[in-house]
């Protein structure tokens, strides 16, 4: 269970939102909505613990995430706006490093399978700098297939730059994760074919 209480976010000297609260039970999906610049990405960064809230706190399974940071990060998968790819490494090297650095032991063949499944079988050994935007996005998303054991997925604009098939595929993967008891929290401006329409949190309603 993930809950947030009375969150306030300060960016520079501007208060983006305050008194923001939500609660997500296992198996729920939440879409963060709102116009550009309202603080959607900032909210996701507060939830992951990358940024500190000005007021309020985020709790995971009843514990404040700042006190039990390493345990919380072991259960969290965050895919941010930047795809975390190094241009000099191949998609396979990037994916293997991402898993190892996060503390997951993933065999090389599972990484290959994940990349093949997401449609990059011909790009496994190319340097990431020659990939298109959509392909770069896919390398990051391949981690989803290797992170089923992490219950909380926080995704920032996961559908950006993907084609129609990939969007449907990703929506199915997210729905499956929730059906298995996981929690998905994401921002998107796009409609995707989810099995069950996600709950919507409009950050604009808490804007100052």
């Amino acid at each position, binding site marked *: 269970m993930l809950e947030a209480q009375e969150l306030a976010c300060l960016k520079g000297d501007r208060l983006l939102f305050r008194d923001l609260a939500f609660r997500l039970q296992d198996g729920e999906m939440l879409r963060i909505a709102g116009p550009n610049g309202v603080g959607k990405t900032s909210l996701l960064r507060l939830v*992951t*613990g*990358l*940024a*500190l809230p000005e007021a309020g706190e985020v709790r995971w399974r009843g514990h404040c995430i700042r006190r039990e940071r*390493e*345990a919380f*990060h*072991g259960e*969290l998968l*965050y895919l*941010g*706006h*930047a*795809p*975390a*790819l*190094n*241009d*000099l*490494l191949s998609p396979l*090297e990037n994916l*293997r*490093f*991402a898993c*190892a*650095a*996060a*503390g997951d*032991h993933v065999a090389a063949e599972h990484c290959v399978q994940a990349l093949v499944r997401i449609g990059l079988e011909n790009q496994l050994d190319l340097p990431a700098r020659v990939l298109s935007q959509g392909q770069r996005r896919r390398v990051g998303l391949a981690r989803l297939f290797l992170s089923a054991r992490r219950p909380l997925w926080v995704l920032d604009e996961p559908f950006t730059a993907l084609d129609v098939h990939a969007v449907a595929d990703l929506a199915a993967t997210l729905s499956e994760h929730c059906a298995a008891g996981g929690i998905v929290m994401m921002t998107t401006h796009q409609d995707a074919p989810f099995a069950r329409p996600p709950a919507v949190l409009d950050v604009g309603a808490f804007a100052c």
Partner: protein
Amino acid sequence: MLSAFLAVLRRDLLLAWRGRADVLVTLAFFVIVVCLFPFGVGAEPNQLRAIAPGVLWVAALLACLLSLHRLFAQDYADGTLEQLLLSREPAAVWVMAKVLAFWLSTGLPVIAVAPAMALLLDLEQGGLPVLVLSLALGTPILTLLGAVGAALTLGLRGGGMLLALLVLPLFVPVLIFGAGAVEAQLSGSGAVAHLLLLGGGLTGAIALAPWACAAALRISTD
């Protein structure tokens, strides 16, 4: 814990190899700075011999500083740093791996060519082992201190210049004992005291700098 350390170390060494032009630039900088001194102060062997330890140490220090701003910049720009901060492993572990990989790809080549540059300045051969040893103990301290500065100035406008202002004063004690070790050896009083102080400084830096660096990275990415 060890697997995360090794994963970061292996990746950074691989990146250093694929981007080896950057490493060569650091090395070329060191060589050129040392070569400038005979032009500046004149090619009188006695004079060059007298200033050799200091010149070599200052050049090594500047070469180390030159590439420091690259330590976290790429990872910060492409989002890898965020992912590392979200790792379940303690941040000090992968910070240490990054610093080690950085030292292996910038500090170690400088130490390797330092004896050749010392001969160019006609440093007495008896001073060479102490020079190499003092650089081997001293440049990791410079890298560790510099990593804290690089983490603090990450993402700032003009961060490279600020980084130099921030860490150069901290480099002074290392420079004093590093160059002092070679001079003490040549004057016959023995370099053991200087080298022991450098060794102590290195153990202290290894124990403290990764934590400070990790805390600074959290502040910079907030």
